[in-house]
């Protein structure tokens, strides 16, 4: 009895692969959990180093939340394996792949090969960039926490309902902000924004990368410049962890603005949680679109 009471009061230790998942988890888990992300929002989540210090964090975790869709394939599997923690092994109760309940875009059909670059065979993993998926992630985390700590189910579910309501309201606001600019054509560096573009009505017509994970080539950059001139595209979105040299050169040639747009919480110092991520990105976009007058 005493042990049960003590464990009911101790916090659930949650480790997430990215800061986005940690921010959403924090909303749902409140003060009944301690939560920490491994990757920082300003680093490329495909290329995180499998540092032994992460093993120590995973060793003590009750729950591991991953983005999935092979985003973390280069670094998370060896960490899980060395964690010596049965609770968080894939298939165990304490392992949550948040993509399984989310709407995933760009799932390749037919044959895929690496001639297409570093394609994600299970679809685009940047799905958290749609608040609708944010709610789905929150629901999965709340359900998982309730499973791990049944005594706190009502608490988690209540916080989930509260988060969903607030996110709904914020989403309406963001949609309204973006509504006048529906269909604005943009170019992005990597394929990090398909979910965002679909939700908020951007039309992504090209990428600075010739293929996913392949750095810009002169020929591709030239083609892209011509295409941008032809279609009068005035905005280039770049994730904070990419070099700005090529985007800036394209910007000079085409007159397009280069926006460093964080795809993750923590991507810049202003973006401290999931709400501020969209606040920041949408303000950035709206200001830039107004300035360019392009559509």
């Amino acid at each position, binding site marked *: 009895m005493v042990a049960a009471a003590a464990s009911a009061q101790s916090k659930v230790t949650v480790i997430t692969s990215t800061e986005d998942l940690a921010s959403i988890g924090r909303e749902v888990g409140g003060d009944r959990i301690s939560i920490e992300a491994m990757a920082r929002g300003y680093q490329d989540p495909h*290329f995180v180093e499998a540092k032994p*210090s992460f093993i120590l964090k995973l060793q003590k975790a009750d729950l591991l939340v991953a983005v999935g869709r092979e985003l973390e394939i*280069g670094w998370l*599997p*060896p960490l899980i394996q060395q964690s010596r923690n*049965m609770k968080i092994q894939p298939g165990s109760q304490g392992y949550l792949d948040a993509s399984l309940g989310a709407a995933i875009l760009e799932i390749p059909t037919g044959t895929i090969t690496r001639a297409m670059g570093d394609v994600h065979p299970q679809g685009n993993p940047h799905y958290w960039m749609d608040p*609708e998926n944010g709610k789905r992630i929150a629901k999965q985390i709340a359900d998982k926490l309730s499973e791990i700590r049944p005594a706190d189910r009502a608490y988690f579910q209540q916080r989930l309902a509260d988060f969903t309501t607030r996110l709904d309201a914020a989403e309406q606001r963001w949609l309204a902000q973006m509504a006048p600019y529906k269909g604005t054509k943009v170019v992005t560096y990597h394929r990090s924004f398909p979910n965002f573009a679909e939700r908020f009505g951007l039309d992504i017509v090209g990428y600075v990368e010739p293929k996913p*994970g392949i750095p810009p080539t002169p020929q591709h950059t030239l083609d892209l410049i011509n295409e941008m001139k032809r279609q009068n595209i005035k905005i280039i979105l770049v994730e904070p*962890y990419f070099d700005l040299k090529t985007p800036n050169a394209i910007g000079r040639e085409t007159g397009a603005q280069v926006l460093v747009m964080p795809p993750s919480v923590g991507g810049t110092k202003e973006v401290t949680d999931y709400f501020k991520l969209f606040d920041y990105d949408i303000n950035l976009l709206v200001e830039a679109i107004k300035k360019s007058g392009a559509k």
Partner: protein
Amino acid sequence: MRSACAWVAAAGLLVGSASSASAQEAAAVRQEIDQLRRDFETLKQQYGDRLTALESKLAAVEGAAPGQPPATPPAAAQPPVSQPPAAPPAAEVPSGAAGAGGPTGALPVYGSTVGGAKVFNPDIAVIGDFLGAAGHNSVNPQPAFEMHESEASFQAVVDPYARADFFLSFGETGVELEEGYATLTALPGGLLTKVGKMRAAFGKVNTMHNHVLPWTDRPLVTLNLVGGEDGIDDAGISVARLIPNPWLFLEATGQVYRGDSDELFHASTPSDLSYVGHLRAYQDITENSNIDFGFSAARGHNFAGIVDGTDRGRFTTTLYGIDATFKWKPLSRSIYHSFNGRTEWIWSRHEQFGGTQATWGAYLSGDYQVARRWYIGGRLDRSGVANDAALVDTGGSFVVTYWPSEFSQVRAQYQRTNYGIGSTADQFLFQFQFAIGAHGAHPF
């Protein structure tokens, strides 16, 4: 009268709360309907796009198979939003998706009649290592061109208690089991246990496969003191445990092997086991940099006492090693710049007829990533020779590596080696590596 009033009040309260509850419920239902409507719209759009794509595909193949339904039923093309992950057909899940660790545990192929068995296939990958050499080396001559190694890996989860990793190394003429072991993940006491054939936890380079080395070859100290290219690689049991402490990552590993390792250890009787111990300490210095220290020891019987097929000398070799690795990688530009500095020092005590030969060797290396695809590096070598402490080989290398993508790598290395027996080798080494199959973990 009073009780009647109370009843009326209570009833009023009940009705009130019921009506407010139903209002809340209605709002929730409305919200849910809105959500479903939005989801449905998204789905409709996606299916529409897909149908169009399929129709055009169908039009293209029409005539070839009239009346045949398309191989991919459109309903299975996209996973329905917020439904259990049962949608994409097995045929479209790439091979190698079923593995350990990643988000593949719940791959959406369960129940599929097409690829139900495939989902349990291990992750398979092959890494080719092509070497070229020009120049002169009379001590350790190398062919002009060589398909040095083709490493095939098979990795999967065995059951809830274990996973298995196999690495088969195909040379141009033969096959060798480089590693093949099960890792038991469910043992109590935080013990990470491996059973099988594996590269021993002696220092850093000994644990690394050829394709993750930052050079085309291995350091002189590995070749001279740790048994040649394969190093300590033997069948046995390994147990590793984290040592809890509030300051740093500390891991102790103990390993027992049969006692046969290339030219280093040799077991004349089943009891001639070899032993390896390793202590690793790791600490983040900042978010961008970290340091890794290791202390290793190994002991086993050697070949020196064998006369006419009988081990008359019963000699042993004992090795001690220390290693240190410094890594720097600025997180916000982690794909463009990084630095690895590494050194290992190894002391050898080799018993043989005429007395014990005690010598040592070391290397010091650095690799700097100058751009996303480019690395430059160098290595300084110094090593005694295990069975003749009077001989000392020294050398130096300069390395340039280019990665066309994450899956291939081109490397050029200029190397000068001064051998203790009095000859000098100047060589230009070239390497092309390429990987197909499952996406492996990036080496740390």
